[in-house]
């Protein structure tokens, strides 16, 4: 009897999530009257603004990931190695972007880095792009930091560091050859999450007025019927693709989990 309820709940949950998706996908295929077609998708892919904004966001995502890795891996490593008592504090700081709305962050940025400030980043396109990248990195920080910190927990950071030092290695070598490769899986899952966040982000890109994918989706959604549905399916596919890749890399981990 209990089993039936469990199955019922599962089916209800699945329907709750999949029905809108199925409906949306169905709708996106119905641009041509009376038959299924990929017309809406073709339209979307053919739109130069799609290509432009998508490329822009992918590039932003890649730079954000690069910056995030360079920022987070050494920080998380150093905190674990030298400042273990500060870990809760650092963890709290990295969680702040979850509590502070993106709009507050971006207004803060605009105030701090406007054209009449000491560092007028918004004065040039490159500056604004960099600022947006910093913004994305902030949004992705909670995920990136947690992923890397969890990865570091699986290795004996202190002893491995000392072993490498006694063999003559300096900090750069230790980070690049020992620490990073051992948390690579964690870094990759952080990277895919970052990618998914950047591709879908709207607020920051819109307020900084950059041609990103998020604002494009919004624009399209406000003006068209079938294309937004196709776009949503595409965006959804990208996100799920990222999650799938996270699963995949975790499985391809070369070394076994360390013995406890």
């Amino acid at each position, binding site marked *: 009897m209990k089993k039936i309820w469990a199955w019922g709940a599962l089916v209800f949950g699945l329907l709750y999530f999949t029905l809108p998706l199925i409906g949306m996908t169905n709708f996106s295929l119905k641009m041509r009257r009376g038959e299924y077609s990929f017309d809406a998708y073709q339209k979307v892919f053919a739109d130069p603004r799609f290509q432009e904004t998508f490329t822009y966001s992918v590039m932003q995502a890649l730079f954000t990931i690069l910056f995030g890795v360079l920022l987070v891996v050494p920080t998380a490593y150093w905190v674990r190695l030298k400042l273990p008592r500060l870990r809760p504090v650092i963890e709290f700081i990295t969680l702040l972007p979850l509590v502070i709305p993106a709009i507050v962050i971006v207004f803060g940025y605009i105030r701090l880095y406007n054209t009449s400030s000491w560092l007028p980043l918004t004065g040039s396109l490159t500056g604004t792009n960099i600022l947006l990248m910093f913004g994305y990195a902030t949004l992705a920080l909670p995920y990136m930091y947690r992923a890397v910190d969890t990865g570091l927990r699986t290795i004996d950071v202190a*002893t491995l560091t*000392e072993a490498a030092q006694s063999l003559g290695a300096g900090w750069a070598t230790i980070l690049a*050859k*020992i620490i990073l*490769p*051992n948390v690579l899986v964690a870094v990759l899952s952080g990277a895919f999450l970052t990618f998914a966040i950047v591709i879908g982000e709207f607020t920051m890109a819109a307020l900084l007025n950059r041609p990103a994918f998020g604002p494009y989706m919004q624009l399209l959604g406000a003006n068209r019927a079938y294309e937004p549905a196709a776009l949503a399916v595409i965006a959804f596919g990208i996100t799920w693709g990222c999650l799938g890749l996270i699963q995949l890399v975790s499985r391809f981990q*070369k070394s076994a989990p360390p013995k406890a």
Partner: protein
Amino acid sequence: MSFLSLTSIKKSFGPVHVVHDFNMDIEKGEFVSFLGPSGCGKTTVLRMIAGFESPTSGKIVINGRDQNSLKPNQRNIGMVFQAYALFPNMNVHDNVAFGLKVAGTDKSETDARVKQMLGLIKLEHLADRFPYQLSGGQQQRVALARAIAVKPQVLLLDEPLSALDAKIRVSLREEIRQIQQQLGITTVFVTHDQEEALSISDRIVVMNAGRADQIGTPFEIYNTPSTRFVASFVGTLSIIEGKVADPAAGAVTIGNQQIALKDPIAGMKGGDSISLALRPEAGSIAEGAKGDTALAGEVVSTSFLGSVIRTRLRVGGDVISFDMFNNPGVAPPVSGDNVTLRFAAKDLLVIRE
């Protein structure tokens, strides 16, 4: 001047003094063990030599060069850890090659050296394995090969065998000793296992609460412990408490029995307490056993250790252990038996604090 010298080393962590005035000179190619109970500061001294901790005061000199200003990665010191600490992302070959690559050695020379090292530890066939595919003993041998591949000035081993099971512990310690002698590496080996220290060291430093209680060859440490701590920690010496009866005659009262020491007791007067020590192999209860001194006592327990039988005997207020060889023709004593232990007066050591 000695190769590695530690002079007046002190170390405190905040208000806690962990190492007090530690002095030690180690010759080139020597194998020295730090032996002592948990928490006595062995690891701390070792880490100061490696540069992972800096001494609160004192001087560390290796090969004429003051080390205090050098970072750990500038000291060229090989280190082997209790937890192996192999790099999990690298296979055996790359682990051993790591130090050579860091030093910028070219590839053919690195490969040759790695091969030579793996030959030394007899693991050439496992060069492609990752650490998690190796047993503990194999991992520790790789860690040893990795540490000596760079031809370190000094090799430091911090309880490298503690995580291994008893059989491998014995075979690996002999392997370590043999490789060390073959290459002539100056080595410091930390252990809290006295048998380990006695069996492989040129010299032993017995440490007690952050001090070196005694420094000497295994023979000296075992046979002539200079403090009560060394006597009780090294070997299985029995400590016997007595009272001086007549210092000039060397007479001592133990419980209600009186015995005579080999020499007069200097610096004590009648009625003073005195501690004596007896090694388990020095006494015998066999019929017609030799020995100019005898103590009667009651058997408390016997334990069968294979080739020897260890018997514990209550004499006065103390328990004395002694060993006898197993003899299938003679049944061991049972608890409650009254026996007489005979030994030579010269085997009875006077322990001074």
